[in-house]
């Protein structure tokens, strides 16, 4: 892919990025951890399952695995503290952890309030809290002339109304908009927030949502990871030029 090659070249001119990724042990999150690790960036990743965190960290030496649940208020500072301590700061925060809501997918009228609340906790309130706790580190990065970018992993369900995707869709729509407000408010401090829709990927979450989907029709998470980095790198190059 041409753009990826170009930006691999540009990438080597910059110092390693300090990156934190939530939901880093499967799907797109894991693909991002692998891609960033492979090119020499400093990576901390967060996931709920201690065993999977340990296994992923072992398989990618130099990465920092952090056990934590973004949906849990009491984990926010536990996670933020370890990210900032392990990386010595933060340039790029990728909110990738995500909850489908009820599984199997349910019509809104059949969705329990608790399932909607759980989707909001993981997809909206949790990332809001984590951004807030990491804002000091991101703003410090911006003041030092480094990148300071937050990526909200989004979905076409954040924009379109699909029957059966209510809890996920409503939380993702709010999450996307949250990112737009953040970006308005933080731009003056040099911190930018973007949404990124990776498309339908061959991931465990997609299999939960659409069990009978043909994997061959779905995008590989590694491909989506490359596409995201192909957005981030030129963005950073533009910021550097503008400064």
């Amino acid at each position, binding site marked *: 892919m041409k753009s990826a090659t170009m930006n691999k070249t540009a990438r080597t001119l910059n110092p390693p990025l300090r990156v934190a990724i939530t939901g880093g042990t499967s799907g797109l999150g894991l693909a991002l951890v692998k891609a960033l690790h492979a090119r020499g960036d400093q990576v901390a990743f967060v996931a709920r399952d201690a065993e999977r965190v340990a296994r992923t960290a072992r398989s990618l030496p130099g990465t920092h695995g952090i056990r934590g649940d973004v949906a849990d208020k009491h984990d926010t*500072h536990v996670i933020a503290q370890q990210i900032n*301590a392990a990386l010595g700061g933060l340039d790029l925060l990728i909110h990738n952890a995500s909850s489908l809501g009820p599984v199997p997918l349910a019509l809104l009228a059949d969705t329990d309030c608790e399932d909607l609340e759980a989707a909001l906790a993981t997809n909206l309130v949790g990332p809001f809290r984590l951004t807030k706790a990491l804002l000091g*580190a991101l703003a410090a990065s911006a003041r030092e002339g480094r990148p300071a970018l937050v990526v909200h992993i989004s979905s076409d369900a954040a924009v379109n109304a699909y029957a059966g995707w209510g809890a996920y869709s409503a939380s993702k729509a709010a999450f996307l908009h949250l990112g737009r407000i953040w970006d308005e408010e933080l731009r003056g401090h040099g911190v930018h927030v973007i949404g990124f829709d990776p498309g339908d990927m061959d991931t465990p979450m997609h299999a939960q949502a659409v069990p009978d989907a043909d994997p061959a029709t779905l995008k590989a998470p590694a491909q989506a990871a490359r596409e995201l980095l192909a957005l981030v790198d030129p963005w950073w190059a533009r910021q550097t030029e503008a400064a």
Partner: protein
Amino acid sequence: MNAATTPSQRPRDAKLLVIDAQGRFEHAWRARLADFLRTDDLLVANDAATLPASLTGVHERSGATIEVRLAGRRSLAADDVQEFSAIVFGAGDHHTRTEARALPPPLHRGDTLRLGPLRAQVLRLLDHPRLIALRFEGTPDGIRAGIARHGRPIQYAHVPQPLALWDVWTTVAARPVAFEPPSAGFVLDWRLLATLQARGIGFATLTHAAGISSTGDAALDARLPFDEPYELPASTVHAIAQTHKRGARVIALGTTVARALEHAASLHRPLQAGAGVATERLGAHTRLRIVDALISGTHEPGSSHHALLRAFVEDGVLRRADAALAQHGYRTHEFGDSVLIERAAAPAAPSAHTRDAVAA
């Protein structure tokens, strides 16, 4: 002065005593802080996040319950998290006044301390029954996770309710290297930062491992603050040079900022970016090279923070300030009210930073 007893960082009724270079006083609401800063001034904050540095556990050899309060480290390097200096207490918690806390069991070099998921060895005894150097077992990631999961913020009897990390992280908190909050920074919120920007007032940060404020022991307290590592970013050094070139003021938000900047200035002129360890205590003897004004909490006479104010103004002004704070009901300690003290105008000697500006 009475202690502020609720962990609210920006209570609406927080007060600010402003002492100008002529020693004149003005009482204001702290929410008006930006009105006392001028275009081209530079506000410098400590962006250290606060570690949950209180670790309860067991002294393995005696089986006694202990509380370990991490109190110092050599550097801010990310992986330099094995060794800390620490204050050790016996059984009990923050509800007991620190002065009344039990001593730990007799500690010996090589003793093992079990602190939740963490294990540590006593590396050295530091000439006081409460003061040790310890070394955690395990990898840096494991140690960081253990402290994050098991530790609690250090706190004192004047705030009865258990503190959470969000109570003690400032809104600009970044790397978790402070043992107690750089609490002068509690005044900051993002609206204030936007106001500063709109008024052409600069904002910069450094990272300083603010140490503990009280050990409960007079002899140990007299040695505070311990050596504190810090890091000074190039962007902050640049902003300070620009500020002095324009004849504007560098305003330290907190005593840790003043300590770091003045220590850095004592090493290199002009100021250089990088890491250092602040070893000197600021006081009446200090000739300030960088900091023109200080925003700080209110402190009791006799504390090291109070002594630091003597670098800014004469003792006569400080005595009047102490009386004014008491008379107007200012609250003390980390969630209390604040003072903004401008360095006394020096009638004779040329100001230190006139020369810095030339050097920069």
